[in-house]
């Protein structure tokens, strides 16, 4: 087994925290969490549909 310590943050790790974590406050502009979860699902579908031959549109965050 290998332990990899990533210096760069992968978008997927960031979204795990920013879309599922953090304090939920109903701001003046309200997006209900259910909507955000839907976005997440759409995101998964979008990514799954990316053809292997097409370079992925999301990269590592510097």
């Amino acid at each position, binding site marked *: *087994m*290998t*332990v*990899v*310590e*990533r210096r760069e*943050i*992968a*978008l*997927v*790790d*960031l*979204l*795990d*925290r*920013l*879309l*599922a*974590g*953090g*304090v*939920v*406050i*109903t*701001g*003046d*502009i*309200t*997006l*209900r*969490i259910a*909507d*955000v979860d839907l*976005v997440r699902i*759409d*995101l*998964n579908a*979008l*990514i*799954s549909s*990316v053809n292997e031959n097409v370079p*992925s*549109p*999301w990269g590592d*965050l510097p």
Partner: protein
Amino acid sequence: MTGLRYVYAVCRPFDAPLQVQLTGVGGAPVKMLAHHGLVAVVSPVPEGDFAEAPLREHLEDLDWLGATARAHQQVVDALTAVTTPLPLRLATVFRDDSGVRVMIESGEEAFRRTLDRLDGRVEWGVKVYVEGGEEQPEAAALAAKPASGRDYLRQRRNRAQEREDKWRAAERFATRLHGTLAAHAEESRLHAPQNSPLTRGSGHNVLNAAYLVPRAHSEEFVELVDHTKDEEPGMRVELTGPWAAYSFVDPEGTGAGDAGGREDTSGEVV
């Protein structure tokens, strides 16, 4: 400052200087809005991007989402270097400063409680992957040509058995590792395993966990993760962090909830 207010985090007032010219979403300058002994970290964002309809649309755009998430994280990260911020969820937006003040007032007690609980703690992310967990048709094709129907069935059974053994071993390993790490952390959370297409690395994600660890014990925790490297062949462990305590803003044992206390006034425009 015109435009809507994007709030990154709430924290206690701090003296340490922030990174000069800290910028937020869209490159806008970040400012500290102090109220009732707490500080909201905010920046102006254009209504054209963050009003409800455009925001909804933007959230489906990976490039936009990625850039916004990165900007959010950069601000929270800069705060983490000087204090313990309470990070808010992505895209928490208010009409103006007075909307932000009302938010602080109504969430005041919960903010203080959570800030006390998280003070001096950071979050570490640990993921376990089974390497080569996918079926490999080439390998199957390369196997010796079966001499008979019975041989064929036996080979097939063996391959299925091997796969199953591998998954069992992975599960055992992940469970044991999580137990060990959780015992060395104050709190832990399990995130849903990440979809293979979402992760660039090879392998199948079987554990996606977050651990709340006092900053002072972080070195020990990282070493503990590092020591697992010789334990199990065919597994890969990834460590990320230190993060602000995104996954621990709710007390242990509660589901995703709001600590801000404005849920019951949703839709209200300040």
